[in-house]
């Protein structure tokens, strides 16, 4: 097997996994902070 296939496999796995952890953490943060803001606005 060509060595480049292994290089491509390593990055094909790493890039989506890294993107997932960044995006999932960002979405969780935005959702939680938005809920606090909405509650603050609702009670004030």
């Amino acid at each position, binding site marked *: *097997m060509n*060595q*480049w296939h*292994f*290089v491509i*496999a*390593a*990055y094909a*796995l*790493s890039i989506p*996994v*890294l993107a997932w*952890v*960044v995006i999932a*953490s*960002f979405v*969780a*943060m935005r*959702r*939680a*902070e938005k*809920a*606090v803001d909405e*509650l*603050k606005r609702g*009670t004030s």
Partner: protein
Amino acid sequence: MHAYANPARFLKIARPLTHWFGWIGGLLLLLCVGWGVFAGPADYLQGETVRIMYIHVPAAWLGMAGWSGIAIASAMQLIWRHPLAGIAARACALPGAVFAALCLATGSIWGRPTWGTWWEWDGRLTSMLVLFFLYLAYMALASAEQEADGEAGGEGRMTAIFGLVGAINLPIIHYSVLWWRTLHQGQSISLMKGSSIDGSMLWPLLGAAVGASLLFGAVVLMRMRAELARTKLEMRMRRLAAS
């Protein structure tokens, strides 16, 4: 350090830092990995597979750095009872586990063409696998303890003790290549002895490591902000329910 244990003061700094760390880290990582993979030279022994190093090595460093963060924050939580320390420790767990898993997976992909095997039960690989399992156990324990406490951001003393005890594995990973016969190569970069890697590979590798570290920092900040917001939300809901 004690000054930033105040959540309001922490958030004031964390908000801009999250964006800076995320964008600079992400761009630096992409740029340096691209530099190493597409413009860097092949190795005279490893051939093209050396290009896997630009993600494998930063992943290994950050897998270990993540647990170092957990151990330091856990010590701060147990000694000084900083309100943010437990949150910081728990926020390091998922990105640390992801980087440890990526280190194992990319190492395995590199091992097949280089060593002729996907896996070998030697000191370095096994201790890194133990680190990954420690992360899983830590996250399960943190989640169980928070549920038992009945609120986000509970004290989590057992989790903190586990975070401290698990740090024993870090020197084992680091010295495994010296203590036991191993397929894994020895240390190539040392603060005292310099580097045995050529500059054409070393610079993209260091750039990728800095980029990945900043990205790791951004993810930790995001997770801390999320947990702080959830704690705040729960406290407000309880106050509303009580009034």
